[in-house]
């Protein structure tokens, strides 16, 4: 009985193997043919997303838009010889995906997100003749470019806008998960508020997650109830709850002046009546920049590429037209932009730096 079972299983595995193996072979020949057709290989670039995928309305999406733009500008096609992406379904997939892309001979492979730090580090050591880049983290390998952003500069401007909009002098900040990146957002935002209106108070709260909209909603509900009239979120999907709460409150009482500030990309479409502005993190610009450099042979391997206001790596989205003192805010924001760009003001990136920060 037992023997028959094992024999059955074996023969089935074998049968499946030969069947599928046959498919594999037929494909191999066709691949070789197509390879023979075009000899000169164009520059190709690809990226690995984390589990969010390219429609996460956050940095994966932004990075992919950057790649698409780079592809369009350079006449590349989506696919193996141009630009492409692979989505990870779990943390275990980062390594496989990065390796697959390197094996497919992409000239440059992006790992999007600090979660991929370990995987990029390891594979860069193994695939020494391939170029990698990682967003939001540092990997110290000669063939890896590390892309970091000065998030504090964008959130500083958001803080200025918030301080100039608030009437109650109470402002809220919702963070996702505590970490270096979100701390930069927090420190910059508080510094911006203090710079524009020293007596305004910022209520700082962390949701502990980037994907819990209902948590974001309950935190912002408490903030608005306690008198805050502007709330900024650096919390990814959790921040969706902030916009929902603000929209709900506005619907109930249209005369009430409450605002929400978005993050990463321009989130104005989340609520035309309540979104004041957004602190932009231009992952797309950074991806385009690094791709261009790699294409021209100036790949910044082993270096940290820091993107701030001056490099067009961060910025502030247009202020909502419905704000009464929009013109004043615009002038103030532009003044600060000049000061930061010229180096006259250094925006704090940690809570410690914030303690010693003075804008004057």
């Amino acid at each position, binding site marked *: 009985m037992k023997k028959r079972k094992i024999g059955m299983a074996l023969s089935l595995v074998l049968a499946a193997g030969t069947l599928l193996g046959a498919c*594999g072979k037929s494909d191999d020949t066709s691949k070789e043919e197509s390879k023979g057709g075009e000899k000169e290989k164009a520059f190709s670039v690809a990226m690995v997303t984390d589990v969010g995928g390219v429609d996460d309305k956050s940095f994966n999406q932004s990075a992919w838009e950057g790649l698409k733009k780079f592809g369009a500008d350079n006449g590349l096609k989506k696919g193996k010889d141009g630009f492409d992406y692979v989505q990870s*379904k779990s943390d275990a997939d980062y390594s496989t995906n990065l390796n697959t892309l390197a094996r497919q001979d992409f000239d440059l492979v992006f790992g999007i997100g600090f979660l991929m730090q370990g995987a990029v580090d390891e594979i860069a050591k193994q695939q020494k003749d391939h170029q990698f880049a990682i967003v939001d983290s540092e990997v110290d390998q000669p063939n890896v470019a590390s892309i970091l952003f000065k998030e504090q500069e964008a959130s500083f401007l958001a803080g200025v806008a918030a301080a100039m909009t608030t009437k109650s002098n109470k402002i809220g900040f919702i963070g996702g998960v505590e970490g270096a990146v979100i701390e930069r957002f927090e420190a910059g935002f508080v510094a911006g508020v203090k710079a524009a209106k020293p007596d305004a108070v910022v209520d700082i709260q962390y949701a502990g997650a980037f994907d819990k909209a209902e948590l974001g909603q309950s935190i912002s509900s408490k903030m608005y109830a306690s008198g805050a009239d502007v709330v900024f979120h650096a919390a990814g999907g959790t921040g969706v709850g902030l916009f929902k709460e603000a929209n709900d409150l506005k619907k109930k009482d249209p005369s009430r002046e409450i605002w929400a500030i978005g993050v990463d990309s321009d989130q104005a479409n989340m609520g035309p009546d309540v979104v004041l502005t957004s602190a932009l993190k231009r992952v797309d610009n950074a991806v385009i920049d690094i791709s261009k450099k790699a294409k021209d042979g100036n790949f910044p391997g082993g270096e940290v590429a820091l993107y701030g206001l001056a490099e067009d790596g961060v910025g502030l989205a247009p202020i909502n037209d419905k704000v009464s003192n929009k013109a004043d805010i615009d002038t103030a924001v532009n003044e600060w932009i000049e000061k930061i760009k010229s180096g006259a003001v250094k925006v704090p990136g940690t809570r410690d730096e914030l303690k010693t920060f003075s804008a004057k």
Partner: protein
Amino acid sequence: MSKRFKSLLTPIIAVLLGIIVGTIIMVVSGYNPVTAFTALWNGSFGDIYYIGEVVRQFTPYILAGLAVAFAFRVGLFNIGVEGQFLVGWLAAVWVGVAFDLPRIIHLPLAVLAAMVAGALWAFIPGLLKARFRVHEVIVTIMMNYVALHVSNYIIKNIITDNKDKTDLVKESATLRSDWLQSITDYSRLHWGIVIAIIGCFVMWFLLERTTRGFELRSVGFNQHAAHYAGMNVNKNIILSMVIAGGFAGLAGAMEGLGTFGYATVKGGFTGVGFDGIAVALLGGNTSLGVFFSAILFGALKVGALNMPLEAGVPNELVDIIIALIVFFVASSYIIRVFLDRISKKEVK
């Protein structure tokens, strides 16, 4: 048709049905199913690297599958594999980074720690079930969340100083091997596969060849009959959960000491524990069945990553096809009824 033949045929038909419906969907939505499945094959067995990755992927699946199957054979539905897996992962890494010991002690100690952690985590629902008849499904689901957040807290505040990731486990505790990596062209294949195969053997031996195993199975068939036969039902319930949890903890050690070599703060579940349920169901809750279905799941998971790139099939469609295969596996009852009908007709 013999019963054994039928139980072998059911999962195979399920997989074939999944592939057929997947093919239909691809044809309807304008993708070439031949290139898609070729890409799936190439991405799982097309290169020695991918073979290594498939083995790496199905190693924890085997153990997670055993964890579900073992409890199932005793009539318990262990949904808590994910949580037991996470505490196992944490315990293995903790021992791996905290001590400096010779390899011969360190590695077994780390593996053992994972096993004990998983077993303890499963002991709680086992005890609650045995003493107070609290349903194990509810307790284990909730314990998953406790495991997730407690292990995040420990990684962040106790093992590291407010970091998202622990250090790599010491050389003396790692399951990784340069030799295995070199023969598979830098895949993350590690020695854990040996542990997984031993696990399969242990489960088979324990259930089929020992008195204790007979008792466990009796409780699974009929608790009351087992009780009247003089068996201690409560003790067997707790024991089965503890052993199942031990398997799940070992699965965590595979990730902690093998695949990753560290533990990270996680925003959500890894899914290995839940895939384990599907693996066990497809494998008919036998150790040999779990072994083969884990291979299938591992190959599907790794191979699917290649489908968007090589065949241009969108990720969503890949997910649907994989889900369909799992769907037909889970609904194998329908297939079984169908097979019964056929065999009855034959008898007539």
